[in-house]
């Protein structure tokens, strides 16, 4: 008899454990007895150094605001796919969002339009806003309201292997005005392609995802085109417009001429199997591991207009937060000048504030000057639209189709059709 009741108690315990496990203790924000506001913050799991920075900055915040605000930081794996995004989506529907969250820049429009984020305009002084790079304000703004601010900007530059370029007798441009145009770029890439090395790697190994849109849409902008109209309400005639088709046909040509490969490895440039690389500036710290690599940076090649990728992770306040004012303090802290300078030093990403460049002397000369030039002169933000999740996936698929030698116009028409349908949902 005793065993039986023990067993029953055990079963009950299991059920309770299960119920407790289902309840969400991540949203444990509230006010303690002594009036300290407890906030929860999510950040994606970037490079280890970046994660360490988040942890350290939040520790500093907790010390500085002791007795007033305490932030619990939770690092969420971002995975190669959409793990972090899925987590946010799931939390949004189940009322489980944290007070502060970071998100990839181009998704701000989608989150803002669906009421996931609270505007932070009123908490940020105008003087402060002016210090941020235009592209950072653009990516954080939806419908004329500011929703997110980041500490980092980003860019994709053309890395080159100094040794291989010297052997081929090629001099890389040192000024943004001298940047290679598309024809020159193709010629240089052909010259650098040998039996053993490719002229270029575009990191096709990253798969159909944000990278293709982030890096690939620059070809469209540079050709005078855009993915959507100015109001961000229409794709037809833009995404599949003449400029866009020409741009992806140029990309296709690079693959047809075999100067770049679909099947590149992740470190082809670092290991000397590719002479040049269209790569993110976040790769720079990793170059240290490759002692033989003598690298330089030059500008993203252009057609008619100078353009370069931009946008990075940004912090925002969730609309579910009971303490938006305190949460905005965290956003401000994470994007203040100290944070911006420090994260820039750690990750190799360009800073999001103009004033921060003054403290980072390495951006005054090549190779890093190229990054500064691009951020301040040619950076173009991806369109801030609630239809972005569909737009980016469909553009990425069209980009891959182009690389694989498919009919570009047809691929872009299909992308346009799907994007138009999605825009309709929000244009209503």
């Amino acid at each position: 008899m005793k065993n039986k009741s023990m067993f029953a108690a055990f079963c009950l315990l299991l059920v309770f454990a299960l119920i407790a496990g289902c309840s969400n203790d991540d949203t444990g924000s509230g006010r303690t007895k002594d009036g300290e506001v407890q906030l929860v913050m999510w950040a994606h799991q970037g490079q280890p150094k970046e994660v360490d920075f988040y942890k350290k900055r939040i520790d500093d915040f907790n010390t500085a605001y002791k007795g007033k605000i305490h932030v619990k930081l939770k690092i969420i794996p971002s995975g190669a796919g959409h793990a972090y995004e899925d987590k946010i989506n799931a939390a949004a529907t189940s009322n489980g969002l944290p007070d502060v969250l970071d998100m990839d820049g181009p998704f701000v429009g989608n989150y803002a339009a669906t009421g996931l984020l609270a505007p932070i305009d009123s908490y940020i002084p105008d003087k402060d806003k002016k210090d941020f790079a235009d592209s950072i304000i653009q990516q954080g703004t939806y419908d004329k309201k500011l929703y997110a601010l980041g500490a980092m900007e980003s860019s994709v530059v053309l890395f080159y292997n100094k040794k291989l370029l010297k052997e081929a007798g090629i001099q890389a441009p040192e000024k943004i005005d001298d940047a290679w145009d598309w024809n020159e770029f193709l010629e240089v890439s052909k010259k650098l392609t040998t039996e053993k090395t490719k002229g270029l790697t575009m990191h096709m190994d990253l798969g159909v995802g944000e990278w293709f849109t982030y890096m690939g849409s620059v070809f469209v902008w540079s050709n005078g085109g855009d993915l959507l109209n100015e109001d961000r309400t229409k794709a037809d005639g833009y995404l599949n417009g003449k400029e866009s088709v020409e741009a992806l046909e140029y990309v296709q040509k690079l693959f047809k001429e075999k100067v770049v490969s679909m099947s590149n490895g992740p470190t082809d440039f670092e290991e000397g199997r590719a002479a040049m690389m269209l790569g993110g500036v976040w790769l720079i710290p990793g170059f240290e591991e490759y002692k033989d690599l003598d690298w330089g940076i030059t500008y993203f090649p252009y057609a008619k207009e100078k353009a370069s990728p931009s946008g990075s992770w940004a912090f925002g306040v969730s609309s579910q937060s009971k303490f938006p004012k305190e949460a905005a303090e965290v956003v401000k802290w994470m994007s203040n000048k100290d944070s911006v300078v420090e994260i820039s030093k750690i990750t190799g990403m360009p800073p999001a504030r103009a004033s921060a460049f003054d403290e980072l002397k390495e951006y005054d000369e090549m190779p890093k000057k190229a990054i500064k030039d691009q951020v301040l002169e040619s950076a173009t933000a991806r369109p801030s639209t609630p239809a972005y999740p569909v737009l980016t996936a469909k553009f990425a698929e069209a980009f891959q189709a182009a690389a694989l030698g498919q009919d570009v116009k047809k691929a872009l028409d299909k992308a346009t059709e799907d994007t138009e349908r999605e825009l309709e949902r929000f244009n209503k």
Partner: protein
Amino acid sequence: MEPSPILRPNRNEKKVTAYSNKGVRQFWLGMGFAGPAVVLLFVFLIMPALLALYYSFTNYYLLTPQLSEFVGFENYQRLAGDTLFLKSLKNTAIFTAIVVPLQTLTALALALLVNQKLKGIKFFRVAFFAPVVTSMVIVSILWTFIYNPDTGLANSILSIVGIGPYQYLMDKDQALYSIIFMSVWQGAGYQMMIFLAGLQDIPDHQYEAASIDGANSWQKLIHITIPGIRNILVFIALVTMIAATKLFIQPFVMTQGGPLDSTKTLVYMVYETGFKFRDVGYSSALAVLFFMIVLVISVVQRKWLRDTSQ
């Protein structure tokens, strides 16, 4: 433990009253034991399925459930004209149609091989079973390296015999078949184990009798082995079929459904539409249709296999 009535005859009286309540008691006891499972099944399986059916008639957007509206059969009408859906359906059908017979036969062949009474055969049993206990995600990443056209193992091996090189996952005509091959390699070990259990149940004397009658190995296989494991064969064909229609991890990890949608499957499309594009309404309609398709195939297959085995 209830005391035995033989050992404790003095408590017979008490037992009679207990017996009169036995039905009621047993009912509650049964409910108590079944309860947790029933609740869990309801919360995590039946309710989501019913909700999906309901959502499939709405324009539910993942981030704004409060704005959902009833849209009737709109999602289903859109399905009918969706070329991507037809492509996903076709890819799933091809995958299932090839994987089920191929994997079943491979598993059977492996089982026959490792059923030999040879020294060290256990090593091979473990070797064939090893991929099954490895996570599918890891196996998929591994095969992505093997299939790399420039540096992969597959092309290196084929080049020795002068074949190739192939593009595998980078080619829209090869990607699905590359995934099929790898899936069969990964999954066959599991069915092999089940077959093996069946094979060891067949009594040796049947084979001995056949030998005396002068049957060769082929005749023994056809007339003794296959009939002996018939039920297992039916079971495996059914289970493999259902698992095959759910293909998701391999394209998710290896190709993201590409190139050019050549490895997009129904479940992948459900995931992509629902989570990446946040279109829960349309995604639910897809899921409901997928459920119907699998249901119809299972019922037909079950009936057909039952009829033929009688």
